[in-house]
């Protein structure tokens, strides 16, 4: 946990900004193109959720360095309406916006670790980690 940078999400184009920064960081860590695409897609989903449901929030990046492994942690934070039933949004095909309903369960499959904390009326924080192998 040495380095941290954040992108504020306010407009739709901020999603692209977050994605590009995440892709740059993951390239520097040494991820291959497939994992870069996975990470960029996960960031895109998380940032889009902030834009769609909370309006504003931010996405932060951390480089992780353990004894023998490296990785990236992405934290998406907002102070939006929160999620009522987390197990429901983690089901494939559940959507409130008419989308595909694959966003959050998809992110979980794209990344190695997935952690979600949400309180109704206070906001949501999602932490995901991808390890380099």
């Amino acid at each position, binding site marked *: 946990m040495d380095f941290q940078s954040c992108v504020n999400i306010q407009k739709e184009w901020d999603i692209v900004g977050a994605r590009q920064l995440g892709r740059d960081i993951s390239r520097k860590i040494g991820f291959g193109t497939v994992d870069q*695409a996975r990470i960029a897609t996960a960031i895109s989903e998380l940032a889009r959720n902030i834009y769609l449901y909370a309006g504003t929030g931010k996405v932060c990046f951390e480089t992780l360095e353990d004894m023998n492994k490296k990785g990236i942690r992405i934290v998406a934070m907002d102070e939006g309406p929160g999620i009522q039933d987390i197990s429901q949004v983690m089901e494939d095909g559940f959507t409130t916006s008419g989308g595909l309903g694959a966003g959050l369960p998809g992110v979980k499959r794209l990344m190695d670790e997935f952690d979600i904390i949400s309180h109704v009326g206070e906001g949501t924080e999602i932490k995901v980690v991808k390890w380099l192998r």
Partner: protein
Amino acid sequence: MDERLKNVVLEHSDDIVNMWLKEVDAHKKNDYTSTISEEMFENTNREFVNVIFSSIEKQGLSSDLDDFSERLINLGWPLSYLTDGMQVFRRVVTDFILKQSEKVNSDHFSEILREVDGWVDPIINRLVNEYSGSWEHIVSLQRVALQELSAPLIPVMDNITIMPLIGTIDTERAKLIMENLLDGVIKHNAEVVLIDITGVPVVDTMVAHHIIQAAEAVRLIGSRCILVGIRPEIAQTIVNLGIDLGKFPTKSSLRKGFQSALELTNRRIEDTRSNDQDIEKLIDSLDGE
């Protein structure tokens, strides 16, 4: 008082201009204008200071100022040249007036400052407005240009149309893609439409959702849609996300997609090389004679 200060400045305009030119020249050493020729720089400085004086004299912003700033914008001079120049002018004039006055107390000092600000600030505001106006104009032109490029539809053959997509797809563009696709299919009487996503950097659920909807809409009006240009990493993320693209055919490259489009419209590519060889032989034999 106002008139008196103004007259002092106008009477000694030559001194002020010289001081100003010296200061601005010193500025030049360490910044942006180093690539501009001496002569050009000097002429512009002279013109700039004349414009400043004429607007002080007339007690208002002159059209000279607009002409001058417009020309500098067109030549690509940075805004900081003008704002720096105005700050230097403010300092020089204040110094000059203070030296001229016999009594210096805080009331007198603040009055001078206020008066000089009254000359300088409107000019700075006008210049900044001119510059930002020109930037906004450029941005809006580029937005229009980008929109024209965002969802092109190319009829390559009878009944076969291609839509190559390059770059990020946002909701506005997705809407445009859908409209252009449906309009184009009707207009070109297309049987098969190829959507090429080789240049789309990330396919997330939103992008996939829009593509699926577009393909479904194309199916409703009686044509077929083939998604081509799916790179390996995109294929993997689509599978990871759990997106079902099984409803319409997909291909890895535009070339393969085009071949199956030909098959769908009962056509195929025929090699004419054997004919070419015959002609070459004929030409060779003619050369021999």
